[in-house]
């Protein structure tokens, strides 16, 4: 029973990662649809995000299951959720930084010949890597191997 719950939680967090990565492209696709752009006009970015998101979700799910065994369910969940927040924030925030209203760096890169899908993918992979780094750092901080942690009662 406990194993099933842990597996379900890992899948849930993995799905949330996919949603966080796909959300910006979904917003753009919906806007394009509403604005009347020909169908599939904004779907290339959505497809790219789904690919990055699904690959990342598999990694997240596997890693969470391993972390649950190595550092315990609570630590794995806290670290997983903190990592999710970083991915969610950066997947949208980096877009504004790169394509942002006040400094169209993205346009400069694209004018220099970088394909849009590559730029989009790079932004999402950077968000994923920073999310993974955050998750890893939190997990290590929560479970410093050498000395036992003092505990306090939950309030």
């Amino acid at each position: 029973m406990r194993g099933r719950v842990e597996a379900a939680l890992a899948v849930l967090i993995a799905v949330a990662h996919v949603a966080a990565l796909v959300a910006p492209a979904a917003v753009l696709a919906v806007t394009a649809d509403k604005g009347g752009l020909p169908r599939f006009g904004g779907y290339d970015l959505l497809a790219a995000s789904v690919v990055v998101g699904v690959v990342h979700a598999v990694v997240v799910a596997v890693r969470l299951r391993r972390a649950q065994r190595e550092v315990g369910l609570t630590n794995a969940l806290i670290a997983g959720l903190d990592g999710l927040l970083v991915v969610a924030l950066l997947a949208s925030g980096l877009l504004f930084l790169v394509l942002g209203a006040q400094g169209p760096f993205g346009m400069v890169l694209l004018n220099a010949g970088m394909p849009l899908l590559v730029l989009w993918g790079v932004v999402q992979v950077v968000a994923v890597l920073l999310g993974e780094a955050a998750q890893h750092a939190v997990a290590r901080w929560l479970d410093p191997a050498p000395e036992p942690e003092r505990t306090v009662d939950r309030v």
Partner: protein
Amino acid sequence: MADQLPRLTRRQLLAGGFGLLAAGATGLLLDRAWTQLGREDLIPGEPPAVSLEPGAWTTSPDEVAFAVIGDNGSGGRQAMAVARQLALSYQREPFGLLSMLGDIVYYGPIERRFAEVFLAPLGPLVDAGVSFEVALGNHDNDLFLGHDRFAEVERELELLGTPSRFFTTTHGPVDLFYLDTVAMVRDEQEADRQVAWIDEALAAASSPWRVVCLHHPVHSSGRHGPTALLRERLEPVLVDHRVDLVLAGHDHHYERTQPIDGITHVVSGGGCKLTGVQPRDFSVVALSRLQFLRVHATRDELVARCVGVDGEVLDSFALQPRARS
């Protein structure tokens, strides 16, 4: 009961508590970010690769065709799609004038972005020899106010058909009057100056049609809404001179009003970005769609069509010339 709850370490409490706080803040930030993302046109787009026959239109004293676009200056994917449809529209029915309702540049100074927001998307029309007349918008960086850094862009705009901040032109049976509503809204003396100018210009007009082109709308049901100063100072003059049509942008949607004191008002601001619109009692049509306008005028009738980015006609209307003494 408390004994059954998991005992959390201090670090777990800190990390979990921080996570909960951050989740709340992230939710708020994402809500704003996604709303903004839906309103902007940040994804770069490909300029239209459409070849047009230069000078293919016919203009006579009795007939003219022109197009109208507003708020199209992102250089983004949606702007390029609208520009492409505009070029295709020229291919089907050539026109010699594109009337622009302001905000020809977003996301940076015009002297740096002019090529990518103007010359790239509208390149096929520029190459075809189409004239461009601009009613300056609030994102257009104080053009024609005498700053040296805009000299090159202003020279280029002059060559394309825009001589100054406010001006009048005649195309076939239509007199067009352009105002700089940004300066009017900013400075009441400037507003008085331009109102006095258009009062005289309208009095001297002799064509069957009088069309006024603005950036800020007099009437609108969109996000920015109506412009109080224009309603107070400009509208009475337009009513007195029996203007037929007022075209404006600023709000990023398409809207046509029923005649208000005899004047039909159109907001055509769907050139690249979109915001919502809640129709008011004066609205005949109000749509949050990417679009531009095609106008065909003879001495007896002015027909306008709102064309969507997929080529669909979203609205059309016909006006008859108003009797003038």
